[in-house]
């Protein structure tokens, strides 16, 4: 990080110096590239592994082009069926995960595939206290999801299925921007 190069946008700066007025601060001006056209959606993602785990093969492409506000109506039932197939304990009356959610409530949360993020403090997928306040690079999201699927009410059920025992990344993350580790 100590050798990070901060690039001043010399060209941009000079253009702004010529063109910038108080009423119009459009950043990209002048001879910019062609950005015309309509871009059609192909993939989307909120929380990790949702399409992979909860959506049937034949519906995976459709899930990627269903806007989040329509996902619950279109996919919650499929999610619940697949969750209960994966972890049949959820079919027992009153069975819940460690968040106190039945299979219906849990899949009702997951089917709308957006990442909830707090702007007021700690951001973590789950750290034992904070739940779904973001996703940090070091968060062991797979183990959290396995625990919520297989771990039962107390995170103690099915211990060999509820932790993959890979708890950290293969490289240290950076404390400063861009945070992700250098490539291999």
């Amino acid at each position: 990080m100590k050798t990070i190069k901060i690039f001043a946008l010399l060209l941009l700066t000079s253009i702004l110096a010529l063109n910038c007025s108080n009423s119009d601060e459009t950043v990209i001006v002048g001879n910019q590239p062609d950005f015309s056209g309509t871009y059609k959606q192909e993939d989307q993602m909120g929380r990790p592994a949702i399409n992979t785990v909860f959506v049937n093969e034949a519906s995976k492409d459709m899930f990627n082009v269903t806007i989040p506000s329509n996902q619950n109506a279109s996919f919650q039932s499929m999610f619940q069926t697949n969750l209960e197939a994966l972890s049949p304990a959820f079919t027992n009356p009153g069975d819940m995960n460690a968040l106190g959610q039945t299979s219906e409530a849990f899949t009702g949360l997951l089917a709308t595939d957006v990442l909830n993020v707090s702007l007021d403090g700690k951001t973590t997928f789950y750290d034992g206290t904070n739940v779904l306040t973001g996703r940090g690079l070091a968060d062991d999201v797979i183990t959290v999801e396995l625990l919520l699927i297989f771990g039962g009410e107390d995170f103690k059920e099915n211990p060999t299925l509820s932790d993959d025992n890979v708890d950290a990344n293969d490289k240290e993350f950076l404390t400063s921007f861009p945070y992700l580790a250098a490539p291999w």
Partner: protein
Amino acid sequence: MKNFKRILGIGVVAVAGFFIIAADHIDAPAVKGGNSDITDFYAFQGEDTNDLVLVANVQGLLSPAATGSAVFDENVLIEFNIDNTGDNVEDLVIQAIPRDGKMYFFGPVAPSQTGLNSVIETSSTYGGDVEITPYGSEPIITSTSGMALFAGPRDDPFFFDFGQYTAIIEGNATGFNATGNDTFKGTNVLSIVVEVQKSMIGGSGTINTWVESKRK
């Protein structure tokens, strides 16, 4: 465990097959392994706690040998979506689109249309551009308009013993190993990292976020 094996009859995740599908890597047939395939999405508080950091990774499972030639597709828009009114419809977007070795960013800005089709919001007040960092170089960063921008190859931050998960799903194992093996160890992704002042995306409270890839 015996209950778990019921899934084999139902086939929920047996479709995993030989494909490495994980956080969102290779998640669906239409995008599988292509240059619009989102592998991961992160959103977290920045080193400066007044900031939020958004990360979109695409084109996963790049070996070091393949990383130098991996490029962002100029026809693929990566769009961060921010809903700050609780209806799961984007109120703001941050768009990233490459042109001739640079990644151009537009937003946060209210999109001229929500949903599956987007136009590039070139009249956005906020944004900037950054030279795409070549493989093997120190990260090139632009800091502008209350934002920091990066685009280029990075280590895939995702970790998971996907091999053992697959073995369980296929009925060849009954559980994870006491010491897992990170399937994503030693692999890279193409990353887009944006740090933005929280005041530019809602200020306080809880927002809903997601990332999309869109092709011209």
